[in-house]
Every structure is written in structure tokens, then in C-alpha cells.
């Protein structure tokens, strides 16, 4: 799967996991920050996104600093998944 395909897949999964009802994949800029700006997600959403990575991609990250890096944008999430060969 290419990075772009994975990004599109992730967008759909994020929308579902976070119940972002009025948002379509097209609305999400893959490079925009997920937290504070951009989608404006919060700490509970961060936990949900980590669950998404665990359940769908078998990726578990304990280190809070690493988590913050991974969850910077949809693209950084996709890049991590690909780097671990988990797509």
C-alpha cells in the first residue's frame, strides 16, 4: 500500500474512531496538526488514536514523547505504520 493510500485509509478510521460525523476524508489535510489546531483534538482523542494504532496496526507506544511525535499529523501516523511494516 502506498503512503497516500494508507493516509486515506487512516482518515476514514480516524473519522470513525473519533465520531467526527460531519467531517469527510477530503476535509482532513494529512499534514495539518491533529491537536490544538487542525482538527483540534484533545487528550482523550489521543488515547483513542493510540487504540486505533493498536487494534488496527498492532502498534503499541508507551513513551509519551514518542506518542506526541507520531500523532502530529495523519502523515506522521502513516509513516510510522509503514516504517514498522504494519500496513
Amino acid at each position, binding site marked *: 500500500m502506498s503512503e497516500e493510500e494508507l493516509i486515506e485509509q487512516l482518515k476514514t478510521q480516524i473519522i470513525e474512531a473519533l*465520531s467526527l*460525523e*460531519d467531517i469527510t476524508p477530503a476535509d482532513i489535510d494529512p499534514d495539518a496538526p491533529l491537536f490544538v489546531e487542525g482538527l483540534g483534538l484533545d487528550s*482523550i482523542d489521543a488515547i483513542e488514536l493510540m*487504540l486505533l494504532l493498536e*487494534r488496527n496496526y498492532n502498534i503499541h507506544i508507551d513513551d509519551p514523547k514518542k506518542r506526541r511525535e507520531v500523532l502530529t499529523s495523519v502523515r506522521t501516523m502513516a509513516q510510522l505504520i509503514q516504517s514498522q511494516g504494519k500496513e
Partner: protein
Amino acid sequence: MQAYINSTGIISPQQTYDGTFFATPIVNTESMILNAMEPVYKEIINPVLLRRMSHVIKMGLGASNLCLKAAEGIRPDAVVVGTGLACLYDLEKFLLSIDDYHEKMLSPIPFINSSHNTVSSQIAIMNKLTGYNITYCHRAISFESALMDSLMLIAENEADNVLAGGIDEFLHNYYAIFNLLSYWRKETISNLSLFEGSHAGSIPGEGAAFFLLGKEKNENTLAKLIDVQTFVTKCDVSYLNNEIDNLLKRNGLQRKDVDLFLLGRNGDNQHDGIYLDLEKRLPETSCVAYFKHLCGEYMTASSFATWVAANILKTQNIPDCLIKKAPAQSQIKRILIYNHYLEKEHGLILLEAK
């Protein structure tokens, strides 16, 4: 201890979210569930916040927002909510996920939402209300407990205005469980035929009703809340009579001073007897009305009744759809609501015209 009902907001199985009082035809359904007629929540609640909210939270926020909107700028000093089942949907979701996922990788959102005070807290967060905030969860006297606390807050001068509400939703699993206890009517009927014949079981409903209770009245005031009493015991009608008479007496009143008795009869012959016994002992001059054929049975149905009573006192008209017995009335000055749950938890709410 008294307070004025200065605005209301209600989501119920009737078309009430638009602020009207039985302006549209009464719901007549054989679905055997009285589901709420609901507004488009996105239009009332910030969609960004809406996304995590389960149905009961949306209903509570929706109704409270409608109430605040109707209050025309009055900001409550306190939020007091009563709910029998609270956020059972989320509680159940999380509970079942524990086994489904073997205690691993559980989503926290249903757990957070399952906290019984989620509705009262979300009202505070959404409206930036940092005052007194509390949730009562005691079955069919949850709403009465909320009213009692509201009256105390106003009497103590701790609040000039209190946002008080009652909320419970219909859930299929709750229905299934209580079906095992023969709570629900087996025969298919229209809700409007709930009191015909003698049958076991009632029809479930749901709703969220909020009231802005104020120390002072204004031009929008619907009615005055005079007193609330609850008691928890299996009892007969003599005991109930005593409770009613004590409540009235401490307010300098007698039964003949009550123009309408609004009763929570729910059509279940296993538990309706006390209502029928009470009716035989009411003054000839009093009206008697029921309400659960319109809202269904749920633990905070007395909040629907309170909305009905407040509107009757304002309009001075008892809609035909409610009436059981109505001798000619020149004026409706006082209404007493009586409701019980399985003859165990009993609530009395006394209202007066403003």
C-alpha cells in the same frame, strides 16, 4: 421554600421541543415504545462537542439548551439534574467491552460518559456554568430530589436561578431486562388505550425536561413550585392519603384546594391499584388526569408531568388528551402530581398558578 418556573425546555415523545404545548396531534402509535421526537441536535449543540455524546447526553443538552434559550438571557447559578438510569448506554457499552476485548485496549469514551453526572457536567462545560452542580440518581424520585435541592438553593439565597431537569432514555437492553420482570405490556395496543381494561405491564418512554426555577417571577413565568415530598416504602392508600394531607397541611391547604390531581398511573394493573384507590378518595370538585400514555413509563416521567402542570397553570386549560375526570372548573389554581415506581418510591409535587 418556593420557586417560580420561568422557562422550560423539553424533548419528549410528543412534539414538544418546539416549545408548543400539545399544539400538534397527539402521538398515537402501536409501536409499544414511546420514543422521543427530537430536534436536530447539530443546530443546538456545538458539533465538535456533539461527537462524543451518546443519545441521553444529547437529549439532556438539547432540552437544557431549549430551556436556557427560552429564558432569554437569564444565566442559572446552579445546575441540578435527576436521572434514574443516567448514561446506561455508555455503562453497558463499556461493561460489555471488558469481556469482548479481554480487559485490553478498551476505549475510554464510554467509561467517561458512563459517569452518572455526565449530563449535568456537560451542561456546565457547554454553557460555562461554574456554580453548584449535582446529579441525583434515585429511580422515580430522582427528579423530585433535584427539585427539592433547587428549592433549598433558592431559599438559602445561594442561587437566584436554578436549571433543574429530569432525564432518562429508552434503551433496548433495559427494556429486555425489565421484560423479564413483566414490566411491559404484552398485548399490542395504541398508547392512547393504555388505561383500557385491566392488563399487566406498561409502555416504555423517554424524555428530558428542564426548568429554570427562579426566586423572582417575570412576564414569562409559567407557574410556581410550592413543595416536593418523597417517601420510600410499600404502602397502601391510607399511608398515601396521610402523606398527601401532610404536604397540603404544611402549606396551609386541604384537598379541596387542589384543582387537578395529575397521576402517574401507567396502565400496569400490578401496581396501578393505589392510583385507583386514591381517585376514589379525591374531592368531587377536583379534576383527575393521567400523563404516561403520552410520555411512556420512565424513571423521571414526573418531569414530563411537571412540564404539563406548569403549562396547564399558565394556559388555564387542561388538554382533553390528559383528562380522566373534569368537572367544570372556573380556575385551575393548584395541581398536585403523584407518581410512584413499583409502589416503592413515591413522589409528590405541588404547583400553583403564578
